[in-house]
């Protein structure tokens, strides 16, 4: 009998050992799945519960992938990719300084109809917090707190759960940009007013929450009757753009006080300067005038800051009648600059033509003919900071060359983006959404170019760093080049943080795929008569549909022709090749960078280092 007991105990030993091997607390859910062997169905069940382990297992198990995707259904792959990517994002270093970047990253990933909703992470943003609690039992407290701020948890944002607010949206421009808000407002009973409390907040997506927070900040600003947001607005930290504007306002106000305290200004000038009706840019223009034409003791930094903040004077803008000539001159000068570096020559191989235009939220773009458009504001900004006039830039060759050298990296950047689009076209996939990977590839090329120029031309070494504090473009060039120098991981991390509002390739693909497949299933469930009736609304052919961005696709999916819909779904099979392209391009740029550095970096003696 003791032997029997011992025997049974030995038999139970594996079960005991197995219990010790249960990986993480929440992986108890996936334990049953993994212990009975990996099957697509079971892994899907685990992924639907949000299991990261199951997602990693799926992506690593080629046999299961083959089984699951045999019929052309890629939904499991995208689920797995979305979860592993969210795991990567959750593990980034989040704290009070950068939770708005996390918010931007989550906007494109969590919400109604997003792939992660089928994994239990959404559509309510708070589900992200539940997922963190479940899968990261030892998640750093500071990161969790920043996640609460990033999802705009009611209690964290407003400090109390017992509160009800009424916000009127009449004549408010954000309404036009926000589909969720429009849907809310389309309710005839809404009366252009949103009543917000802890319960309605749960049904709002992150975009709408941000819109409401911005509205409250702007309302505070109006109450204060000032050009800058109300200082006491405790929600200021939730809007990076308003916060930046506020900080600018504080700095200009400080300079304003300094100018008035100097006693040099007349009372009329002082009154004009301190008027609350003046905008930030108007005040900066006045300060610029007073600093230049008086004995007020302003530092070079203050003068540069004021130059950067004020609007361009007419003589700092290229006159409309001379724009074409200037474009020809600038194209030639940029080409000369590009010839100085290998990365530039690569961009130059297909010819460069530069145009000047007014761009919103970007420094450069490409028109359909492939011509590179450079923001006229960027050119004016450089002239302001350098004290150049448009007339002198067009006549003094050195000034034109200097300006061309300053904007030349944009030609490399745009050419790299054109290459990415060509690759997508070659792979037969639709890609009209700018992704973080696009930025990594294009900014990598740009950084290689800047670094190469800096190594060859001593005058270029501080081109961007010297004015990085006054120009967002110069800051981007300097920051990216420095990050690239420190290694690919550091660089990619920096690019992702700086472009947190962009989706990654896999999240963009995952969401597009799930919408297309859902629409296909919906149509399949319709009767022939119903489908025929709906087909009158199918206004987008394949060519139009494939050029849509992810957001456009979501809004227009019901209007895509059936054939186009099928074709787009089938193209996702080639997505993997396209995703590999980014890795290959990044590796090639990195190899070129290493070769360039080996050729040109002066080997400073660090004695005794041997690998």
């Amino acid at each position, binding site marked *: 009998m003791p032997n*029997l007991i011992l025997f*049974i105990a030995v*038999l*139970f030993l*594996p*079960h005991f*050992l*197995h219990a010790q*091997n249960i*990986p*993480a607390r929440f992986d108890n859910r996936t*334990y049953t799945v*993994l*212990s*009975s*062997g*990996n099957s697509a169905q079971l892994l899907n069940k685990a992924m639907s519960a949000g299991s990261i*382990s199951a997602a*990693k297992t799926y992506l690593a198990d080629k046999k299961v992938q083959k089984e699951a995707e045999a019929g052309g259904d890629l939904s499991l792959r995208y689920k797995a990719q979305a979860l592993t990517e969210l795991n*990567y994002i*959750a*593990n*980034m*270093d*989040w*704290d009070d*300084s*950068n939770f708005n970047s996390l918010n931007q990253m989550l906007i494109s990933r969590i919400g109604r109809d997003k792939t992660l909703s089928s994994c239990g992470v959404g559509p309510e943003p708070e589900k992200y917090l539940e997922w963190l609690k479940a899968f990261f039992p*030892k998640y*750093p407290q*500071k*990161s969790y*707190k920043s996640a609460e701020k990033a999802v705009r948890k009611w209690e964290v944002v407003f400090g109390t759960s017992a509160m009800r607010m009424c916000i009127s949206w009449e004549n408010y421009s954000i309404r036009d940009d926000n589909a969720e808000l429009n849907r809310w407002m389309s309710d005839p009973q809404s009366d252009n007013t949103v009543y917000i409390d802890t319960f309605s907040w749960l049904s709002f997506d992150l975009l709408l929450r941000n819109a409401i927070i911005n509205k409250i900040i702007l309302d505070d600003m109006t109450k204060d009757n000032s050009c800058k947001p109300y200082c006491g607005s405790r929600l200021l930290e939730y809007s990076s753009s308003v916060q930046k504007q506020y900080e600018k306002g504080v700095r200009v106000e400080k300079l304003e006080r300094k100018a008035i305290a100097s006693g040099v200004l007349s009372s009329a000038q002082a009154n004009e300067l301190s008027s609350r009706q003046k905008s930030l840019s108007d005040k900066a223009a006045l300060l610029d005038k007073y600093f230049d034409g008086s004995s007020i003791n302003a530092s070079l930094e203050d003068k540069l800051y004021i130059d950067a903040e004020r609007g361009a004077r007419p003589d700092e803008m290229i006159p409309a009648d001379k724009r074409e000539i200037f474009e020809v001159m600038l194209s030639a000068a940029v080409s000369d600059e590009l010839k100085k570096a290998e990365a530039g020559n690569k961009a130059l191989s297909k010819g460069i033509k530069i145009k000047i235009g007014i761009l919103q939220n970007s420094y450069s773009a490409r028109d359909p003919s492939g011509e590179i458009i450079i923001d006229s504001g960027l050119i004016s900004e450089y002239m302001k900071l350098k004290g150049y006039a448009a007339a002198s830039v067009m006549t003094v060759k050195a000034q034109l060359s200097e300006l061309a050298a300053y904007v030349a990296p944009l030609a490399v950047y745009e050419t790299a983006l054109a290459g990415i689009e060509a690759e997508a076209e070659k792979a037969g996939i639709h890609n009209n959404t700018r992704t973080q990977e696009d930025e990594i590839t294009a900014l990598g090329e740009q950084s290689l170019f800047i670094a190469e120029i*800096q190594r060859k031309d001593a005058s270029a*070494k501080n081109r961007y*760093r010297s004015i*990085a504090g006054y120009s967002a473009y110069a*800051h981007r060039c*300097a*920051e990216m*080049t*420095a990050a690239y*120098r*420190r*290694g*690919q*991981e550091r660089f990619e*991390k920096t690019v992702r943080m700086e472009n947190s509002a962009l989706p990654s390739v896999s999240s963009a693909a995952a969401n597009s795929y799930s919408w297309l497949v859902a629409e296909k299933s919906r149509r399949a469930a319709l009767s022939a008569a119903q489908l025929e009736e709906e087909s009158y609304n199918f206004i987008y052919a394949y060519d139009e549909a494939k050029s849509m961005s992810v957001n456009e696709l979501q809004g227009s999916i019901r209007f895509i022709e059936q054939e186009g819909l099928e074709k787009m779904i089938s193209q996702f099979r080639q997505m993997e090749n396209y995703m590999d392209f980014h890795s290959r391009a990044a*590796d090639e740029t*990195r*190899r070129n960078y*290493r070769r360039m*550095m*080996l050729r040109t*970096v002066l080997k*400073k003696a*660090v004695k*005794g*280092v041997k*690998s």
Partner: protein
Amino acid sequence: MIFRINPLRDFMPCIAVYIMAFFLLFSFAVFASVAAASSVGKNEIKAADSSQSLENMPGKKAEKTNAKTAGQTAHKRTPEKTYGAAAKGLAKGYKKIIHLPYSCMIPEAWSVSEKSADREKETGVYHREFTLGSQGGKLASFIFADYYAQGNIEFENAEDFITVNSMNDADETESSTDKYEPVRKQKIAGKNAFVIERKEKRLNADAWEKEKLYVIPASKGFYVLLYSADEKVFANSNLKEFEKMAASFIMKY
């Protein structure tokens, strides 16, 4: 003759055999599943299944054993045999990281992010990033523990890494936006290491980012440990934990 059925006497052997057979089959199934589950998501972080990764390591080809043998050897190795003392007993509140090219101890509160094993194999850069506990400051604090295999795509050798990382783009060691201390030597976990200390002004956050790097040349490639934080909170407990981690660092190559 009267047959009296004694359940204990008559059926027990039979029942025992059934139970044994049942548990034998069941335990076999459980053992199989343990093997499958053990490669995924434990508290200790593994780079990948060791037998596969050893085959994939750049620079490993030059070793005497062929890939298959190396894989078999690695399979038999326990973490203790491979990495020595660091993989053994843990102080309370710490966990061990067993990444293929190294092992070390880190506080349990730190979370770890990793890239795909395929990318590590392609680039020859084995990267781990640790997210640290809250310490305040305007900038995020983080630690990298990287292995640059021989033939990696980023740096020729440790000397290249040190050269590039000990001065700015303009080849200066001091400017208005950054400052690099002279590179010095130091013993770390019994190995000769080079220490780089630098700080850079982050214009967006209006704060100085301070960093300390240990560059440890190895027989094949080199290792880099990096700690980065806002200068104001740089010398707090995270720095101490970084030093502890470096002291527990055991290299594979």
